[in-house]
């Protein structure tokens, strides 16, 4: 599960790739752990290139959101594609996590 991250004007932007399923969810979690610093206050996860996410992957998103909340950071995700969007809608996670259609909107939201 390769992720790519960069900091842009105080916002940590993380790109997720391909699939997150039960086989690589733990690795995904560890990569996020090392990408996020304890002084990050604004984090956006861009899912444009993510094609599939399983419930194990959703749990990682939830754990990350909880961790960021504890360090008073704002967190949003953006650019969900068809199947991934459906998984968020069916599970009701679209009501738990802040979701935006574009990266610009998400960045504005976590800096608002």
């Amino acid at each position, binding site marked *: 599960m390769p992720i790519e991250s960069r900091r842009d004007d105080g916002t940590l932007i993380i790109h997720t790739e391909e699939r997150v399923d039960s086989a690589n969810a733990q690795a995904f979690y560890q990569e996020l752990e090392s990408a996020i610093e304890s002084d990050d206050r604004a984090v956006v996860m861009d899912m444009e290139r993510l094609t599939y996410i399983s*419930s194990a992957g*959703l749990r990682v998103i939830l754990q990350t959101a909880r961790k960021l909340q504890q360090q008073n950071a704002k967190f949003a995700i953006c650019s969900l594609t068809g199947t991934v969007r459906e998984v968020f809608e069916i599970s009701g996670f679209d009501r738990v996590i802040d979701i935006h259609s574009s990266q610009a909107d998400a960045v504005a939201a976590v800096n608002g």
Partner: protein
Amino acid sequence: MGDTAGGYRILVVDDEPDLEPLVLQRMRRSIRSGQYQFVFAQNGVEALQKLGQDDAIDMVLSDINMPQMDGLSLLEHIPEVAPDTRSVIISAYGDMKNIRAAMNRGAFDFVTKPLDFDDLRVTIERTLNNLEAWREAESSKVRLAAIENELDVASKMQQSILPTEFPETDHYDVFGSMTPAKEVGGDFFDIFSLENGNIGLAIADVSGKGVPAALFMMASRTLLKGAAIGLKDPGKVLQEVNDLLYDDNEAMMFVTVLYGVYNPETRTLTYANGGHNLPIIVHDDGSSSVIPSTNGVALGILPGGEYEQSSITCAPGDTVVFYTDGVTEAIDTEEEEFGMERLQDTFDREPEDCRKAVLSILDAVSDFAGGAPQFDDITCLALKIK
């Protein structure tokens, strides 16, 4: 099991003197056949003494309210004297507070008063199956790498909570099946008999894997059963289970649940959804539709979450099919998903009965997947209206 020849030993703890003759009478066949032996104690103190003296006791069935030492305190002390024993408590109908307290203290399951002996028999069987699974896993611990062993334990725990008997009446029949993935997933389903001839049907998918997920699954199943018999409205049932699961859920596990109550008299299915895939109804001409969606988040993550409920009226010949994402997200060798369309296209006419309905879906998924590995549990539960 200390004494194989004598079957399983079950310690019944209750201050009510009428229970002993009643158990001996109603369970006489199992006693005579050597399947079960019963021993009795009047309160927690006496129960602990018996457990201390008799290491062949496999299971404890205990009331909650008793003089000297109540059932909840007893549960706390059992691991000290008899760690390899499973406990089931007897609680008042719908008493979620005590059921939850007992679960937290390690109870495996519960039955409600007044005792329904058919239910008790099933519960005893399930409990002892679970105990056997643990014992097997324990004894093979030496042979297996830790992680494999953990997955093995989790998978046996998962199997032990699934119903093995399916109701069949003049008005409807029910059938369910779960095909586990190699690496344990977390699907389960359950069927409960409710008041006034109604029947409760649940299908669920727990996030994560291994023993923590399996324990979360057991808690989900037991809380769901408790809430289902205590509360009428499916929406309220999910709300209650959600709040209970949310407490102490540091690991951020969650479970998606679709829970419905079918009333055979009015042929209505009233349901609520906690983030699960929506069931389909297959009509008598083989056409099918997805049931209307209702609002609700997966259980265990949002405190105070509310669950909308909705009702549909079925026609004779309709089959309601509940399923998990292991069905729709099964992939073929090209990594294409099975999907909703193929699920609905499985039927070109009315399924004969719900066993056949479930089996034709499993066959369709397996034909589609070809040689592609199965990543998630594949679970289907069907209700056919006659």
